[in-house]
């Protein structure tokens, strides 16, 4: 079972965090700090797997973003690399060649996508088509709901930020 997944930039800024086990905020911050330092300190050609406490850490870099997962000792490292890759593919397909900015501005979408793909730390749906279909269905509902709102907003009837 995957314990958590972290996305962070080369500068060490956390972009997304998904925890499949309960920790306090303090512990989460500590773990994040430790792992970001650990992973950023590694050289390019090194192994993608690390032993870390009682867990295994699997990470991979895509452009400016690091994807880093912590899995349990009996979990499969290579397949975890491919979980990361499949998630990147999903983001890429949805945003159209995804970049860090897409994830910053649409962080909620990135979460929704992850919830369709992984649940409770286990792979739920590996078919790219099925995940994207589910997200498209959500977007359809969003457009229906939001349309009148945006017009009002354009007209300055609501107070924004």
């Amino acid at each position, binding site marked *: *079972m995957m314990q958590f997944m972290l996305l962070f930039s080369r500068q060490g800024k*956390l972009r*997304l*965090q998904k925890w*499949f*086990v*309960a*920790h*306090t*905020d303090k*512990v989460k*911050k500590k773990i994040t700090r430790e792992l970001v330092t650990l992973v950023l300190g590694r*050289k390019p*050609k*090194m*192994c*993608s*797997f690390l*032993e870390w*406490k*009682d867990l295994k850490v699997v990470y991979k870099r895509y452009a400016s973003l690091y994807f880093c997962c912590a899995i349990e*000792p009996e979990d*499969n*490292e*290579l*397949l975890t*690399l*491919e979980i990361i*890759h*499949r998630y990147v593919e999903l983001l890429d397909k949805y945003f159209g060649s995804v970049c860090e900015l897409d994830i*910053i*501005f649409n*962080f*909620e979408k990135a*979460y*929704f996508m992850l*919830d369709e793909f992984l*649940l*409770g730390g*286990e*792979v*739920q*749906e*590996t*078919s*790219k*088509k*099925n995940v994207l279909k*589910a997200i498209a*269905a*959500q977007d359809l*509902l*969003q457009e229906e*709901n*939001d349309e009148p709102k*945006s017009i009002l*907003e354009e007209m300055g009837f*609501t107070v*924004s*930020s």
Partner: protein
Amino acid sequence: MRGLAVFISDIRNCKSKEAEIKRINKELANIRSKFKGDKTLDGYQKKKYVCKLLFIFLLGHDIDFGHMEAVNLLSSNKYTEKQIGYLFISVLISASSDLMKLVIQCIRNDLVSRNPIHITLALQCVANIGSREMAESLSIDIPSLLVSGDTIDSVKQSAALTLLRLLRTAPELQMGEWTSRIIHLLNDQHMGVVTSAASLIEALVKKNPEEYKGCVSLAVSRLSRIVTSSYTDLQDYTYYFVPAPWLSVKLLRLLQNYPPPEDPSVRTRLTECLETILNKAQEPPKSKKVQHSNAKNAVLFEAINLIIHMDSDPNLLVRACNQLGQFLQHKETNLRYLALESMCLLATSEFSHEAVKKHQDTVITALKTERDVSVRQRAVDLLYAMCDRTNAEEIVGEMLEYLETADYSIREEMVLKVAILAEKYAVDYTWYVDVILNLIRIAGDYVSEEVWYRVIQIVINRDDVQGYAAKTVFEALQAPACHENMVKVGGYILGEFGNLIAGDPRSSPIVQFQLLHSKYHLCSPSTRGLLLSTYIKFINLFPEIKPQIQEILGSKNNMRNPDVELQQRSIEYLQLSSKATADVLATVLEEMPPFPERESSILAKLKKKKPSSVAETAIETTKEHKAMPAAQINSDGQPTLQISSPSSAGSADLLGLDIGGMSAPVDSSSSGGGGQSASDLLVDILGGPVPGGIGGGVGVGTTNGLDSSGLTVGAEENFLKFITKLNGVLYENDLLQIGVKAEYRQNLGRVGLFYGNKTSFQFTQFTTSISCPGQLSTQINVTEKPVDTVMEGGAQVQQMYNIECISEFTEAPILNISFISSGSNQKLHLKLPVSINRFMEATEMNADSFFTRWKALSQPEQECQKIFKATSSQDTELTKAKILGFGSSVLEGIDPNPDNFVSAGVIHTRNQQTGVLIRLEPNKQVEMYRLTVRSTKGSVAQTICEFLETQF
């Protein structure tokens, strides 16, 4: 949400951290005023603000409001509002929040809404939070969604994994009636459903393998269909030309919970699957993309794990080994890493051990040339695992050589491994001594106490190596800069066996002494203390250098040393050397007797350091036992420790207790206080040669007296429950249950504690220790077997305590437990259920002899009487049972009043037996008791009386 996008841009445009914080505070103030304002916000606005809060939280700031607004969003009928509400709750609300009841109510509403997208949102939220409260309130709704015929596939998928999450939180959830329908999800047409269900089924199987046995054949046939399909068959479930890699891996893992299938047809089919997977590894890749090879090899490695798990088919094992051998030289670092890791497991199988050994040279090259330390670490692990008597010298040599330049991060572990291998496979113990001294020379800082204790134990226990050891340490000490650990070993060994090399003028007594003393001033106080003991031993070995040594002992620097221990040793040793006769000196400072044989403490240390390798080493050791029983030290018939009390010897055998481990090497009656736990090697090594009055020697921690207020709540009550029974539950909370099972013979006892992890998560750093408050440490001996520091979720672990009663006692030993569960530190202080009555044997006697004895104990101090109110039923049978459970007899027909109870017993301590007579007189009218206890020892009568008083 335009407002959100604007806000995010603002944050990104902030030039400094301060500007960012300012902008955030402004936004927080704005949102707060909106939430508090009179104007009711519509759903869209709430959603937007909640989303902003979420963003601020994810930037790393604390959010202390907005939770209520988020919960409001849950009951919105607009999907996106609901969705943001759930996201906020999943990320930000803790399971213990007051709002959780409301949240669960909203979740339940959505679960029964019959709207699949709402159901899915609710399920995802449960899976994300997975609190105990949720498990309790939704334990019916979710399983029924999973097995209902009306549920659409995607909801089934979420339900399966949500249920899995709840099972991890609340392992006691029962699936009873759904078992067979859940198993049959493996046959579902929808691959996504099977993928999700496979994880759930694995968790259920772990809980109850027998009930879910039916899944084996279904999993095998599903796996078989996947591996034989062409990559086009499974459409979107094919990943880079690999058919359903995730499902394959899950199925292969599921099968690792069972032994090889019994049904021959299933077994053949499984073997075919595994062969197909191995064959595919040899086929040319269908794509050059790394995703293709990763997915394919992920399945392959999992198949190899299953082959290793079944450990029954030599053909498959050897094929697996050859496959991994190819990976050892692969250009992908990841594959080399994994191959080294998997080979460690293969090395422990008797079928493939030899095949693994063929790759020894490659592994040694990896150790020397890999650029990534984590890969080198794996190479060390594999060398350790593949080591046996035939290659030990070479492997140990290579590891020693590598140690000179090894990364700091892995040195300590390597030192432990080298030390273990050298001991385990030593044919010639001079080689062993050389290896350990080399270890100290090369990596002295990383040589832990366990390592140098162990070399001393072995040298003491083997007289064939003592002369060589003395000569070698003497030479090693010649080096101008030698490590303090070398001085310790040198000091100890020369103090014992310096006489064996004293004939050589180059290492005459005075030369030995001067050599050691030249290091004295550079050493820490604990080492100096050890050297002082060496000096006093020299006085016994070499009377001719007594004046020189006395001069040092009497020097100002030592006599007035600010370190109390050094001062005391100098003064007492000086006195001893000047007052005692040669005979007394020779007795007190006699050569150490052999140490009792026990598990290497280095192994325990390695386990502690690397819990993940425990299983592996455990297999190792058992295998080693089978193959080469001669590897153990002491196997050459060396005498084990003499047991001081002859009466306990017989019963020691009966119980198989390791009481040898408890006696101090010097006559135990003369050694001073200090904790004598056998696990504390310092006592054995350093406390031994120190004569009486000096206390426990250097570095022995004094046992902290824990007062009753330092105990975990309920500890006292639970302890009292065990006064009249042997087995039961000692302690229980949400995380942990501790059961007790005990047996006693005369003055020896064996108490088994069963720790049950009630959560579904691992406990880490699980450690236990015993402390004996006050005088107790001299009254009983408690030895424990260490437990693994990692305890898997749902696991039960047993720990044995051996107890010896030296003299009568009143207090109970304190059991200290600490561990980490889900990141939080847990500490328990309980009373170990050991009381003096446990060492009592019931005695039968007739009225005459009872009264004769009763009258003989008529001194006031030999009697203790208490009159007290009954706190439980005064039923005769119940009372009888309690007295028997207490450990004494129930003597019928002795007391003229048939309502009274008369009882007798003998308490066994190491050197003494103490009789106890008991009379209990119930008065049922007023619900009172009068209890009278007489004993040859007044203190015993008092203790027994006090214990019994709590029971009726």
